[in-house]
Every structure is written in C-alpha cells, then in structure tokens.
C-alpha cells in the first residue's frame, strides 16, 4: 500500500501558513528563541473561545483546520497528534497558582486545558468528529509516533483521510528552564547564521504542522510518504539508514536531497557532519532548524518542507547547504536526531 500526503498546513516562525510563497519571504531573527508568526485565529476559532485558549491549542486547531481545507476534506477518519511537552502554558499557570495560592481557591480552566490530549480533543470537538483520536508524548519522536500510528491505521484499512500533526509551544518559563539546562546558546545569534557559530546549544522554537494522510492516489496529492523509521540509540546509524533504503528498493544514489535536523549545536551537529563525510558524501543537503528553531516536534516542519519540495519542484535557496543544483528533488530522505538518543528517518517521494 502507498501512503500519500494529501495536504499539509504549518504554523511556524516563518511565513508558512497559507499561500504566501514557498519560503520566498524569509524572516531573520536575532536571539536564541524563535516565536511563531500567528495566523488570524478568528478565521478558525470562535472569538469567545480564543480568549481562553493557550497558544498551542490555537496553533494546533488552525493548522488542523487549514490542512483539512487544503485537502478538501470535512471529516477526517482519525485525529492523531504528537507533542512532547503538551500544554505548557496552562500547566505552568496551574502549577504557579498551586504554589502561590497554597492550593486554595484555584480556578479550574488551566487544569482542564493542561492535559496533553487537549489539541486533539479540541479538534474533535470543533469538527464533531467521533472517530479514532490519539495523542503521543514521547520526547523527540512524539510526532513520528503519531505518524506511525496513522500509517498503521491506513494499512489496517480501519480509517482513511487521517489528520496527523505535531504541536509544541514555547513559553517564557520553559525557555528559561531549558536555557538553564543548556539547550540554547548563551548569546544572541542571527538564525540565518545558526550553523556557522560552532558553539554549544541551539535556538529554541515552536510550531504546529498537520497533514492529511490517505491511501488513495490522486493527482492533487502533495507527496508519497514512502517510509518512516525511528531508532533508539542505534549501534550503527549508517547501516540503519542503508537498511531502510534497501527495504524500499533504494540506495543512497537514488536520493536527490537529504534534509537534516542540524541545529547549530556543536555537540549534536557532529552526527550529521559524520554522515555528510560518509554516507551522504555525494548527496545534496538541506537544513531547516534555522527557520523554525529546535523543538521536539520540529520533524513535522521537516515533513511539511519535504512534501512542499516534491510537490512544487522548488528547493528554496534558504535551506540548501550547497549551491543549488538544477536537479529537481523527486526523492527526499529526512534525517533528524534528538539529543543523539532518538533518530528518525522519513522517505518522501514525488507522486
């Protein structure tokens, strides 16, 4: 069975929402944290509800709804989301009140909206969708886990037109704490110079991207999701990547472009650089985290990018590591790792 990406929608720190050109108007930031460019949420959510909704719910609902619109689908066969941290804004609000008010006279709203499944639940509620609904919360492979579930559902023939997405919000508190934990650089950088600094830490980000997956071939599908694989502490990464290619009847020469999860952190970029010196030696490379920042479900941005490249035949210069070749990418390998523990691979092909 072939799995197709029928449509996609993405809220990120770049102009990725709606038809504003495919990364033609790149936004430069200086700092260590990229915030999303928010669409007009009133177009997607009742204004009375917007007030009470945290950023991640708004981003998630808007991306999900736009994805359905793009895919000309009213009711998805399933709704599956991935998020590592869930609803941080409401979690921190409720936790703060517990401590400051010493557990007394607490309002319930933040608690109600703090559960990790809130985004998937709100989408179901707005669509009145009673179908399969699931949320995966496994660190750097939360989105990949959701995607894996969607692929299995399609293979089981239990659902079609599956809405699957990755969402993550960055709030001030999580940014401060994650900075203290050493995730981000200690000095401001231009996001467009992210890979040149050769220092520890990356830049923080956030975003939401949704996809409509289908097993039905159609001329207006965006791409084929040929394969997905996650690995935990693999013994030999190169061999694992070659195995995946081989299982799909391919070798590295068949890959027109590798999109890597390089994030400008000296310690973690070494893994990508080793591959570039080895297995990916003769393959064009693209990077994307300078555009959206690093976050646990940034692979959803990566998939949005890959699907758009094979759909449009355009490789935006801002993501290309080398001189842009004239070769139009038809087959893309996405490779990301999360703190060198979790590794994910996706194969995206033109239809």
């Amino acid at each position, binding site marked *: 069975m072939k799995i197709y990406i029928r449509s996609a929608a993405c809220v990120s720190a770049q102009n990725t929402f709606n038809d504003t050109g495919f990364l033609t108007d790149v936004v430069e930031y200086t700092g260590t944290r990229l915030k999303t460019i928010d669409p007009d949420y009133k177009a997607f959510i009742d204004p009375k509800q917007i007030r009470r909704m945290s950023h991640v719910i708004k981003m998630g609902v808007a991306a999900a709804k736009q994805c359905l619109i793009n895919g000309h689908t009213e009711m998805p066969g399933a709704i599956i989301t991935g998020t590592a941290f869930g609803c941080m804004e409401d979690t921190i609000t409720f936790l703060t009140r517990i401590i400051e008010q010493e557990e007394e006279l607490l309002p319930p709203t933040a608690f109600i909206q703090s559960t990790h499944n809130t985004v998937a639940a709100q989408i179901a509620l707005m669509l009145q969708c009673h179908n399969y609904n699931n949320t995966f919360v*496994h660190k750097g492979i939360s989105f990949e886990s959701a995607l894996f579930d969607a692929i299995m559902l399609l293979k*089981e023939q239990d659902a079609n037109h599956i809405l699957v997405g990755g969402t993550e919000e960055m709030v001030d508190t999580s940014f401060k704490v994650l900075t203290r934990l050493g995730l981000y650089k200690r000095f401001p950088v231009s996001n467009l110079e992210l890979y040149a600094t050769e220092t520890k830490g990356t830049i923080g980000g956030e975003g939401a991207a949704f996809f409509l997956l289908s097993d039905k071939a159609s001329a207006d599908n965006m791409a084929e999701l040929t394969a997905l694989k996650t690995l935990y502490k693999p013994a030999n990464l190169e061999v694992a990547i070659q195995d995946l290619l081989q299982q799909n009847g391919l070798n590295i020469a068949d890959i027109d472009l590798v999109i890597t999860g390089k994030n400008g952190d000296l310690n973690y970029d070494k893994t990508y650089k080793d591959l570039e010196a080895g297995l990916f030696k003769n393959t064009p490379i693209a990077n994307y985290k300078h555009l959206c920042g690093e976050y646990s479900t940034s692979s959803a941005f990566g998939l949005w990018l890959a699907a758009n490249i094979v759909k449009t035949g355009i490789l935006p210069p801002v993501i290309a590591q080398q001189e842009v070749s004239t070769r139009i990418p038809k087959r893309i390998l996405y490779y990301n790792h999360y703190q060198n523990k979790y590794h994910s691979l996706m194969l995206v092909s033109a239809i």
Partner: protein
Amino acid sequence: MSSTVYIAGAGVISAIGNNTAEHLAAFKQEQAGIADITLLDTIHKGRLPVAEVKLTNEDLIALTGLVNHNGRTALLSLSAAQEALADAAIPNLNTWRTGFVSANTVGGMDKSEDFFAAYLADNSKGKLRNVYDHECGSMTEIVADSLGITDFMTTISTACSSSANAIFYGARLIKNDVLDVVIAGGADALTKFTLNGFNTLMILDEAYCKPFDEERKGLNLGEGAGYVVLVSDRVAKTLTKPLYATLSGYCNSNDAYHQTASSPDGTGSFMAMQGALKKSGLNPGDINYINLHGTGTPNNDSSEGTAIKRVFDPHYPPMSSTKSFTGHTLGASGGVEAVFSVLAIKHGLIYPNLRFKTRMKEVSFEPETHFQANQPVKHVMSNSFGFGGNCTSLIFSAV
C-alpha cells in the same frame, strides 16, 4: 492483520497491593485501598481520601533497583513492568523484537512541583535534576532503559483512557508485524497537580467513592501502574506457561461533547463499546463481565450507564468498578484494569463494586456487590474514558 495477540504476563501495583497476588487477596477480602493521605505533602491531607501505594519512594527504589529516581511515576511503572515481564517468562526474550508502549499523564510532575516552588521564588534557583525528567516520555524511557528494551518505545497520553490506548496500540504493533513482544500499559503517581486539578472541578468525594450508586458524590484519586505482556502467535508457541487471554477487541472513539464532561447519552462510550464488540466479532450477550470505567462522579457513571443500557439492554452481564478499591489511577487505570480483566478470565472471578447501595435512576441494572469465584468468565470488556472525550473499550477473551 488478523493475527491473534495473546496476553502472556501481567503486573500491577496500586493501593491494594504491590503485585497481582496481593491484589487477588485484597479483592477476595473486599479490602479497599482508600484512606487518608499519608505520603503526599498537601493541605488536603485529612480532608480528601486517596488511594496511595503504601510504599515511599525509597521503598520503591529498593523494590525495583532503580538507582536514579526521577519521578514516582517511573518507579511505579518499573515495578509493575518488571512483574509483568517476569510473569511472562519468555525464553530468549532478546531474540524477539520487543517494545515498550507506556502511558501516563503526569510524567515527572511530582519532582517538577519541588523544582517549581524554588524556581518561582528565584528563577535562577531550583534543582535542575528535578525538572530534567518532567516529560511524560521520560518516564517511559527510564523504564525501557532499566528493562533493556531498545527496539521500540513510545508514550501515549489521552487522559484517563491513556493506558487502554497503549495496550491496543501495542497489539497493533504485533498485528502489523512491527514487533513480536510488547509490554503495554501505563502508570501515574499522585501529585499535588492532579489532586488540586480534580478538586477545582469539584468531582472528588470527601468520603470513599460509590461508583454507580445513585448517591455517588465523586471520585477518589489513586496511583499505580499496570502492564500486560502482549505476544504474537509465534512467541506464544514458545511459552511453557498458560496464556492469560487474547486481546480480541478494541475501539477508540471520541465523545466530541465537552473538554471534560461526558455527553448525557454516552455517545463516545457507546461507540467505543460497539466498536470493540464489532472488532472481536462478539455479541453483547457474549460478554461475561464488564470492568467499568466507573469513576464515581455523577457525570461519568450516568453517561457510562446510559451507554451500557444502549449496548446491552435487556441482558446485562455482571459488572463492577474496581476503582472502589484502587481509586482512580488516571493514566494507569486502563493498564491496571486490563490486568484485573485478564486475572478475572484466568481465575474465573467477578470483582465486587464496594459500597454500592442504591441503583441509579436512569438505568435498570446494578453492579455486583460481592466477590465471586469459580465463575464462567470467557469474555471481559474493560472501559476507560477520559478528558477530551477520549473513550476506549478493550475486550479480553479466554484462549
């Protein structure tokens, strides 16, 4: 895709016991685990009863051998997962593709609460060690590392239906030939966050909960973990111990009614039960016991009761809420109750619904009130419904 998935092992820890044997003894003695708060540091101590696991973190460390404790949820999880894996006694486990699919809702929140108190006073303070494993996924990773599982792991969080979803996701991984063995279930520790959260919703009973009783006032929170070991047909053939059951049916539906409340007609739970029956190829009359979600809140039990009426009327199987023993263990409840379900099949048991007195007005059935052994229990339905309208029903069947 139609291959059978078997349950080869089970492990559980809750307020009524630290392993399956202690749970069976507590059920037989009709001994609930609900009591005054002793371990959790909260102003609600002495006012809100809970169902705590009667072991300190130090006790749990000694029990599990986990050295770097970074969350009580991970300790509870490891304890039950170790028991389940040992119980399954799979020969040459390392030759099979093995995964760990776990669920929780609080992650390392107990430790984050400690961190956050210091952090709020001064943003440069708070021990980073206490917040490092805040994520739900960290709990799963800590346990998978301890068990030596690397082939596959993931974490599901769909509120109170979390671990029921983890179990059937695990089964699907086997059916899709991704894995041969999956330890699946979930864990959740009591935290100030959840206790205060449910308290703000005014759905906690200040007395011991009375699920499915007309006079019910709310739920009692609990904590614990429950896991089953799922195996493929090929693995099952290598086992010398008898199998517990098969996972014959499952369905996940969304109520799509309200973020926290269940619909009056139980749409989501009705669809979950119907879907699970359809998947298993069974009729309502084939079910010998229902392990209810039965939290004891007016809303849940009315909604679930109405849905049961729609599915089973007029022939109701025996049913009970074991939350009258364990409290509501949130993200763990689907795993804990899956273990009770397969034990019911193995030993022919119907568990009592403690403290039940008065039938709910909207239904024409009552839960079982006494422990019964030597019953013909071939097919058990287990319900788990949660915030966000997430409703899941599982059906376990005798082999």
